[in-house]
């Protein structure tokens, strides 16, 4: 009966109820949708960061991280790779690469790049290059002249598939090594910086140019779940010689990403509180108005012997109704918008320069995190009830004599 009374009471003034419900809907919607939006950006940044030749876990020779020079390479990587492989979960992927800074040059242009020697099959599921090329063909394993470059680099160099690209780098003997490659394919990445930075050749081409035998620069591991990186890294570190090799997770390799995640978590809470603060005044105001209008009724109920806590409860049930209906509609709206946007994402390329700077791509695919949804709803409903306790207490404290003196 309390529920029935509350339900009827909130519809005594439909306009007011609808206005406050709308505020709750917009509040919840903005919390969930905009959080999903931010989460999408962060997830995107993480995925980009990890897929851009970082991986969840990376194994180097000691010293490579502070000085990524050729002498800090992994010599004779076979046994190490076997040990790493033996300590990976079944669904993980692993790739060994050669990576060195180099100069790319053609008749008109030159630029510093990172020359990466890969086995394309190995990179599948490990890095973005494993997804293949956007145009042309992937490099062939063992081919000495194939090279795959980014779309942005190709445009910058005013060149095309089939053309020559000269790469120069210092080899293992500190001699200048240069080699002519032919552009076989073009990759496209979310970030222009990635497209300009990396060029891919076969491992054997890189090894031949750099005179490093069968050595590699790094072993990169990709897991199904990025959160398991620490555990896997520990397991690998326990199995290998940590004097000679370093094991690092993406959180250590990309401290900026980790920092972004923490900042975003903080933003989300702050954002919730800001949105809620905006709603609070609406909720208190409406509830106060609804209570003051009905003081005589509360007085009557008190006279009839109703306890104050039951009056408090009755008012809170009414607020709860408004909050719950508003929350349900707000959730529905947010979820359906996220669903509608789906994998297409929202293209913000008109502001892309700024996003690029922050390491984000210009197409954002909102991602709903269960924890955020729970938090948003909990904030609105719990805090909503807490703040409406004040008008409810005013209703509960009224005495029948006071109430009847009102007119």
């Amino acid at each position: 009966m309390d529920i029935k009374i509350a339900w009827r009471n909130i519809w005594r003034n439909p306009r007011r109820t609808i206005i406050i419900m709308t505020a709750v809907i917009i509040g919840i919607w903005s919390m969930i949708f905009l959080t999903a939006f931010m989460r999408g950006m962060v997830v995107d940044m993480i995925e980009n960061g990890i897929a851009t030749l970082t991986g969840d876990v990376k194994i180097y020779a000691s010293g490579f991280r502070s000085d990524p020079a050729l002498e800090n390479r992994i010599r004779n990587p076979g046994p190490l790779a076997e040990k790493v492989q033996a300590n990976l979960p079944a669904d993980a992927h692993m790739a060994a690469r050669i990576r060195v800074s180099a100069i790319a040059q053609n008749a008109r242009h030159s630029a510093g790049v990172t020359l990466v020697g890969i086995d394309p099959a190995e990179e599948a599921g490990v890095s973005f290059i494993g997804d293949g090329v956007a145009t042309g063909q992937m490099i062939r394993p063992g081919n000495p002249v194939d090279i795959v470059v980014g779309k942005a680099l190709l445009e910058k160099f005013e060149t095309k598939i089939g053309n020559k690209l000269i790469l120069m780098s210092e080899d293992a003997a500190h001699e200048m090594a240069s080699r002519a490659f032919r552009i076989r394919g073009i990759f496209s990445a979310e970030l222009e910086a990635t497209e300009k930075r990396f060029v891919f050749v076969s491992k054997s081409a890189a090894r031949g140019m750099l005179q490093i035998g069968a050595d590699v620069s790094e072993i990169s591991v990709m897991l199904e779940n990025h959160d398991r990186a620490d555990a896997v890294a520990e397991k690998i570190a326990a199995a290998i010689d940590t004097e000679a090799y370093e094991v690092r997770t993406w959180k250590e390799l990309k401290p900026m990403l980790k920092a972004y995640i923490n900042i975003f978590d903080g933003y989300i809470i702050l954002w919730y509180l800001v949105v809620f603060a905006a709603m609070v005044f609406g909720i208190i105001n409406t509830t106060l108005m609804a209570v003051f209008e009905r003081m005589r009724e509360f007085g009557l109920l008190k006279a009839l012997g109703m306890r104050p806590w039951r009056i408090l409860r009755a008012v809170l049930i009414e607020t709860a109704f408004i909050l719950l209906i508003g929350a349900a509609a707000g959730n529905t709206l947010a979820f359906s918008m996220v669903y509608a946007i789906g994998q297409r994402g929202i293209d913000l390329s008109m502001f892309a320069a700024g996003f690029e700077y922050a390491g984000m791509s210009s197409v954002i695919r909102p991602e709903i995190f269960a924890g955020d949804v729970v938090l948003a709803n909990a904030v609105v409903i719990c805090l909503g009830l807490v703040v409406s306790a004040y008008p409810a207490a005013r209703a509960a404290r009224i005495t029948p004599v006071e109430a009847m003196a009102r007119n």
Partner: protein
Amino acid sequence: MSIVEIRGVDKTYQQGKVFVQALKNIDLTVEKGSFAAIAGPSGSGKTTLLNIIGGLDVPDRGDVRVDGNAYADMTRSGMAELRLCRIGFVFQAYNLLPVLSAVENVEYVMQLQGVDKKQRRERAVAILDEVGLSGRYHNRPAELSGGQQQRVAVARAIVSDPAIVLADEPTANLDSKTGEGLLQIMEKMNREKAVTFIFSTHDRMVMSYARRLIHIRDGEIENGKPME
């Protein structure tokens, strides 16, 4: 056997900067089964006296005992319990919850008393039949006339067999014919269910139904003797 015993009750209100003495040294005893009217002009202290009997207001001085309960010794929650179970109220207006139908208004009090759901409905319907509201069970107060609303209030007041029903000018907003109908119902309930009724009024017709008249003027009782 007395159901209401009042000894030496004073009550002073502050209205703005002026102190108004609403009740002066009131002594009053009302017997069980009475059908008593507190009569007097407006501002004489009728409502204050009823409120004090009903435990809605607290006297500055003096003792109040209702149905064997000394108010001075009771907690606030005990008072609420007493009002809920032992005292029925009928006010001048705004007696009903506007969002509930006639039968729901009656049931609601029973729910607060903890009566189970099935019994509530049966008893509410029965009492509405007795006050002559068969067929109006599901009308909201706004769909009922003033007289009908007051009859619902009477039904609600007596549905749980209280020791006493206090009615503050129950007919004030009704025309005389309707008022008379309401009083007839109240009297019938008083007779049939042996429920004590105390009501305030300044209407001669209403006074004529009372078996005891308590005249009050400027906060003092002029004539406390029973008419019977």
